[in-house]
């Protein structure tokens, strides 16, 4: 097996000095505040664990601080790319992009990157769904679903992947807009879905790794169709692989990132905007929203599905909203969030919701308003 290995050496530096990331100009600010690198030690931990677990494959690594520096003392088989240029100590996202392109040219089976959400985005922008990717967590923000919970677990996943017992599934790549974060505006965007290796049936201890296994999604979709999908009701299906499982079962082709509409088993709208959704609601008598939980922070509305705006939610009303979530995803999340920029509505919608979490299985979860979280968490 050929493993592409790239480290974003500055990832995670902002965390200890109170910055929310190290994207763009934030890096210099981090250095000025005395931040120390985090990623190199994470990279070393990952490689040590990989060697310890008897990884057999060959590693195609980025040069110097982006990879090979951490491999020189290890027993693993590796070759170094000539990217980034020898001697370059401070690297940028362009370097990451070029390295990942080189991985594709060399034909790797899996890409492991050490970094955070920003790095995940960069890697995804090049690989798309060509090659599965796996993140060794080293960022300040890790909203994306492509990260293992620790460097050691990441090594575990790689070895499983090599043994052919890992399955490859879609996971979200999301990121916060750091410029707006400085102004205290949390704006998480869903950038797309990457392929990532997951381990099914691994009961302990890596159940953390299992994220939305196929079987769970099929169970949810089948149950929803059997028990909740009624004739003459318009269903808006939000983004994500869980909602897509419904249309897959119905034999319809849904967009993965967009909002689509289904009526009496037919697709009547694709990749809809807010105004198109409002328009359809006016035309059909009864409308329901079907959404899944987005990201590791547990957003039901306001992340990746902004089309479901406050205006839409007011028209549809809570009784007609269905939330789907796989148990493995839910296990990571304490409460769910709504962020539609309308505090009054957010408060009105918050409370205990019944989520559809399996075939004939529902789970109660607390849904909180993003506007006024402090108020609830203190209580």
């Amino acid at each position, binding site marked *: 097996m050929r493993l592409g290995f790239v480290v974003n050496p500055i990832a995670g530096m902002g965390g200890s000095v109170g910055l929310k990331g190290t994207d763009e100009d934030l890096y210099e600010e981090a250095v000025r505040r005395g931040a120390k690198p985090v990623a190199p030690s994470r990279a070393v*931990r990952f490689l040590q*664990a990989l060697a*310890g677990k008897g990884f057999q494959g060959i590693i195609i690594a980025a040069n110097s601080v982006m990879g090979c520096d951490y491999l020189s003392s290890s027993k693993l088989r590796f070759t170094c790319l000539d990217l980034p240029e020898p001697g370059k100590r401070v690297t940028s996202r362009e370097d990451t992009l070029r390295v990942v392109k080189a991985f594709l040219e060399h034909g790797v089976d899996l890409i492991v990157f050490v970094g955070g959400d920003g790095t995940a985005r960069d890697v995804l922008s090049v690989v798309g769904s060509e090659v599965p990717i796996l993140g060794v967590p080293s960022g300040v923000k890790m909203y994306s679903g492509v990260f293992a919970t*620790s*460097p*050691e677990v990441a090594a575990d996943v790689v070895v*499983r992947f090599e043994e052919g*017992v890992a399955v490859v599934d879609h996971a979200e790549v999301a990121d916060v807009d750091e410029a707006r974060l400085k102004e205290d505006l949390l704006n998480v965007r869903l950038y797309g879905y990457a392929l990532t290796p997951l*381990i099914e*049936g*691994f*009961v*302990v*201890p890596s*159940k*953390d790794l299992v994220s939305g296994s196929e079987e769970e999604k099929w169970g949810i979709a089948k149950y929803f169709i059997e028990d909740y999908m009624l004739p003459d009701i318009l269903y808006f299906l939000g983004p994500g692989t869980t909602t897509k499982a419904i249309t897959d079962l119905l034999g319809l082709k849904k967009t993965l990132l967009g909002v689509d509409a289904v009526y009496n088993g037919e697709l009547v709208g694709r990749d809809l905007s807010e105004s198109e959704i409002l328009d359809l609601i006016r035309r059909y008598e009864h409308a329901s929203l079907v959404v899944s939980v987005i990201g590791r922070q547990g957003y039901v509305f306001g992340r990746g599905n902004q089309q479901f705006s406050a205006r839409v939610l007011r028209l549809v009303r809570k009784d007609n909203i269905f939330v789907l979530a796989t148990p493995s995803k839910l*296990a990571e999340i304490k409460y769910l969030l709504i962020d539609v920029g309308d505090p009054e509505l957010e408060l009105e919608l918050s*409370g*205990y919701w*019944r989520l559809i*979490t*399996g075939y*004939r*299985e*529902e*789970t*109660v*979860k*607390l849904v909180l308003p993003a506007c006024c979280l402090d108020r609830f968490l203190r209580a």
Partner: protein
Amino acid sequence: MPFRQAKWDEPIIFEVSDFSKQTFLIDEEFADEVSEALSKVPKSLARGSELKIPNLSEVEVVRHYNRLSQMSYGVDVGPVPLGSCTMKYNPKICEELASDPRITELHPYQDEEEVQGVLEIMYLMQRWLSEITGMDECSLQPPAGAAGEFVGALIMKKYHHDRGNDNKNEMIVPEAAHGSNPASSAMAGFKVVKIPTAPNGETDIEALKSVLSDNTAGLMLTNPNTLGIFESGIIEISDLIHGKDALMYYDGANLNGILGVVRPGDMGFDIVHLNLHKTFAAPHGGGGPGAGAVCVKKGLVDYLPVPIVGFDGRSYKLRYDLSRTIGRVSWFYGNVVPIVKSFIYIATLGPALREVAEVSVLNTNYLMSKLRRLRGVTLPYGENRWRKHEFVVSFENLLKETGVSAEDVAKALLDRGLHAPTIYFPLIVKEAHMIEVTETETKENIDRLAKAYEEIVELAYRDPQAVKSSPTNTSVKRLDVLVANHPKTMAPTYEYLSRLRAQET
């Protein structure tokens, strides 16, 4: 105490030696009798090929099993602190009496008049268990704990059906419940609705209220729950459930935290199942079989699985005359041997049964107070509360700080001659160790366990790799979890093993 487990390269019994030996000498007369009998077997029914069973001498058999037992570990060797499993010591007096030929040589088809003794034992067990749980009648039929749960769910189903309430199709189950609760509910045809645990470690009553409806069939609850915390709102919960004309089900797999102190019946429960092999000291976990008695309140007695044992003032009888019974769930009397063992356990303790709970709760909290002080260890949910029969600590911080996981810590315990606790359960606690020492363990043993944890955690910060490479003192070293758990790697029979091997070559 240094620990090195025996390591024999012991073959499986089919391969101990060739098939030519025999255990006993058989005299000619007996041999003649056998061949005469065999000659009467019609050719069409006779086996053509040689019977493939191991033919070994007595000494080979004894050595084989003794060697295996030396590579094994159980409560007779040291503590087995598996949370929710209640691995208490099984007193030898129970084993001895249950092995009495007057029990073992009974035949299920014997006339009831000839088996009055065992029927009396069963009758008294029904009475005692009713008294212990605060219920009105019990059936000893279910052959295991989860079978008892399933029976409870079926009783609920039929009860609602009889009252014309087929719309009652939702079973509420806390997310920290035993995993078999949602499974039993689903098997009985209910939808499962899971409710969360509040930060104080109890069922979130507001969440419960939010899901109650006319469709609610019942609630399955363990109290104290799997975090070892007693549900202080239990009366309110019962009232809420009964207010919806639904039933309260008590998962009494483990009564060690409340035995003789409080009763499920007094908390408002309508149906209870009991794992006799846990609280009442019959062997389990490979030493079974178990028994999962089910007890109910008055209005549900007619639904119990049959037969139950009745007494007319003169003799004991198997009763099949329960009008609404869900039917049979087992063979003959159920699993009689564990019932007899538990009967003896209760009889020998008498009123001291309450001390079982008192000592287990004391042991739990003593160990908990030692472990929660360790670096990298936290006690999630209800940090300031005492626990009952068990407690759950998290090694999440240890994992973050050292890379040593709950599983690694468990493996390191094995290296110190201790059995690991239940790990990664309940799912609401990350990197969990669920620990239950029961009343069995002495203070010295609990101190030993605490000391082992202390050493392991200290080692994790000093030399994490040393912890991650354990166990090394055991006969079997660290297994690849995925391979070990995978159905494709398991061979339930010798026949199948031979086929697997043939495939490999």
